[in-house]
């Protein structure tokens, strides 16, 4: 019976006719609704914001990811915990307000010490691949001049790999990798993932002219790469020309998971045969 579903309605809707106040601010409602926000006035920040909620004046803070500016006030543009990153001298004179896209225990601390890692970690506006972000990608096609890969996950430097929950991919990284490396598991989700190209000259930093694409990647390999360009309308461009970039997981011709033995070779533990790859340095 659908009637039962309506158990938690807004208790009473006000009679809007008598109301003169044109700008009913939803902050008022949050006194009642939001168990996490202790103070919702202008002086202190709410702990949790929803889109459109006014957070603070532009004179006191600068706007970070997850917020937008309207009439010299910073408003939230996504729902999530409000984080204040402390001001950094020279670069950023004002503390930065942002709404965290990823919910981690660290962000829930009030006034979290953003200064501790603020220097090395750059908050991002979206979960899309951006220049210099590290990605894990699966090779879908190897051609003479380039390899086509589809980006499985954008590695977020700010998060630990285990707790990484990006909005674009809610699955955890481990499950993506194991299923992706499994050749039988090539479902039709490739058109749902962002495509990227590794051009021949971006494969490695040395002996670029001797690169043979077939000896660098095979279809199904999992590659760690770094985005160098947003590219054209359909492809990002990725490089693997660093020691820590390249193939991280691969199966041999026989179908067994291989282990790296050098920067350009991986070996099948069962058959003992080696196969050439552009191997990423294991951590």
């Amino acid at each position: 019976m659908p009637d039962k579903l309506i158990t938690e309605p807004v208790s009473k809707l006000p009679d809007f006719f008598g109301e003169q106040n044109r700008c009913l601010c939803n902050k008022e409602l949050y006194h009642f609704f939001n168990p996490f926000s202790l103070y919702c006035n202008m002086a202190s920040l709410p702990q949790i914001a929803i889109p459109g909620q006014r957070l603070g004046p532009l004179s006191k803070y600068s706007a970070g990811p997850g917020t937008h500016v309207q009439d010299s006030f910073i408003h939230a543009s996504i729902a999530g915990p409000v984080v204040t990153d402390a001001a950094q001298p020279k670069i950023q004179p004002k503390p930065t307000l942002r709404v965290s896209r990823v919910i981690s225990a660290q962000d829930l601390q009030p006034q979290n010490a953003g200064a501790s890692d603020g220097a090395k970690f750059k908050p991002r506006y979206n979960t899309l691949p951006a220049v210099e972000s590290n990605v894990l990608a699966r090779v879908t096609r190897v051609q003479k001049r380039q390899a086509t890969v589809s980006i499985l996950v954008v590695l977020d430097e700010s998060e630990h790999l285990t707790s990484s929950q990006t909005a674009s991919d809610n699955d955890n990284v481990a499950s993506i990798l194991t299923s992706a490396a499994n050749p039988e598991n090539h479902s039709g989700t490739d058109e749902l993932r962002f495509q990227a190209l590794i051009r021949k000259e971006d494969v490695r930093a040395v002996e670029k002219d001797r690169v043979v694409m077939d000896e660098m990647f095979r279809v199904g390999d999992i590659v760690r790469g770094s985005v160098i360009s947003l590219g054209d309308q359909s492809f990002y461009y990725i490089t693997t020309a660093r020691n820590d970039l390249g193939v991280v997981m691969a199966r041999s011709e026989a179908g067994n998971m291989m282990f790296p033995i050098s920067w350009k070779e991986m070996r099948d533990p069962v058959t003992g045969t080696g196969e050439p790859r552009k191997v990423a340095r294991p951590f």
Partner: protein
Amino acid sequence: MSNQRQASSASQVPHLSPAELSYLYTSLSLPKNPIRPDGRSPTQFRPLSAETTILPGTNGSARIGFADGTQAIVGVKAEVEKTVLAADTLDSRSLAQHGDALNREGEEGSAAVSGQGEWVQMSIEIPGYRDDDALPIFLGEMMRESLVGSVEHKDEMAGGLKARLVINKRWHWRLYIDVSLFLPLDLPVSATDIMQVLLLSQPLSYPLPLLSLTTHLALLSTKLPKLKSTGEEDPFFDDDWAAAEYLYPRSKPSSGAFHPVRPPVTLLVVSVGENVIFDPNREEISVADAVLAISITRSHDSEALKLLSIRSIDPPSRLTQPGIPNSENASMLGAAPTENPSQEEVTGVWRPRRGGIKRSVVARMIKTVLGKGGVGEEVLEGLEGVEVQ
């Protein structure tokens, strides 16, 4: 996909650079007197040529051409059809007649009196769009809704256009309004290329005003054969075309205060900054803050114009590419390129429009259309002036 995206926005993604957009926006949003690219005043329409009754095979037709070569041709055809109550409706009165049939017999079912909106069918053909794309459907629904929605309560047009289509309880007219848009070919092309150009080129501006004005004229010129039968008998008609009656009756010069019922007109209104601008061309619409389609008609019982419908249209300015201020431009000296887009507005740098419109702006746009001596009256008078036969 890309076609679908273009179809749903007000027209296509504008092909102007951020600098051009910013210049255009600034000149159009000048307080009080905006400067339009073609020098028109804010309420002035583009010059157009119009003629009616051009297609001999129709009950009514009209053609309007803009100076840029865009043309619309509308043909109205009427067919006699038997009235059936829709299967999903259950007229309680007809059921009740089982009980006391006799004293109810005098009453007519309400369906028979007032007509049904489905009797007016509208199809729009725009080159480059499939007939089930969003744009033709949206335009068609928009014009049909004001057409069948205009309800009058007095005299011979009681019930509006729908009621006019009723012949008797069992028969009605079905009206087919077919709109075709033709686009200019500005290059000398061979016959095989013409096909491609017709298919590929997009309308030069949002075609709504053109289609609406042409439909208005076509309906004005529409004639239905004179009914010779009376009452509930099967209808037969006078085959003298000269005796045919106009669908929208002409005003009688004898009665001074008589305001003839007229088909509705849909006007395209945009707001840029504080200004309200009519009949925008493609460049103007691409910087608009808000685009409204407002349908009006002449009220039957008073001088004032009547509002029939408002629809907001997605302004294409939301899809434009932003300009990059010098402070963020990597090619400028001393500027550090930032990955994060800047949050503040910089004057003279184009930002795609975001957000909606204030209610006060909506009210002002409606007022400019409806007000006494406003644009609506001007347009309707101008259309009256088009010689019908």
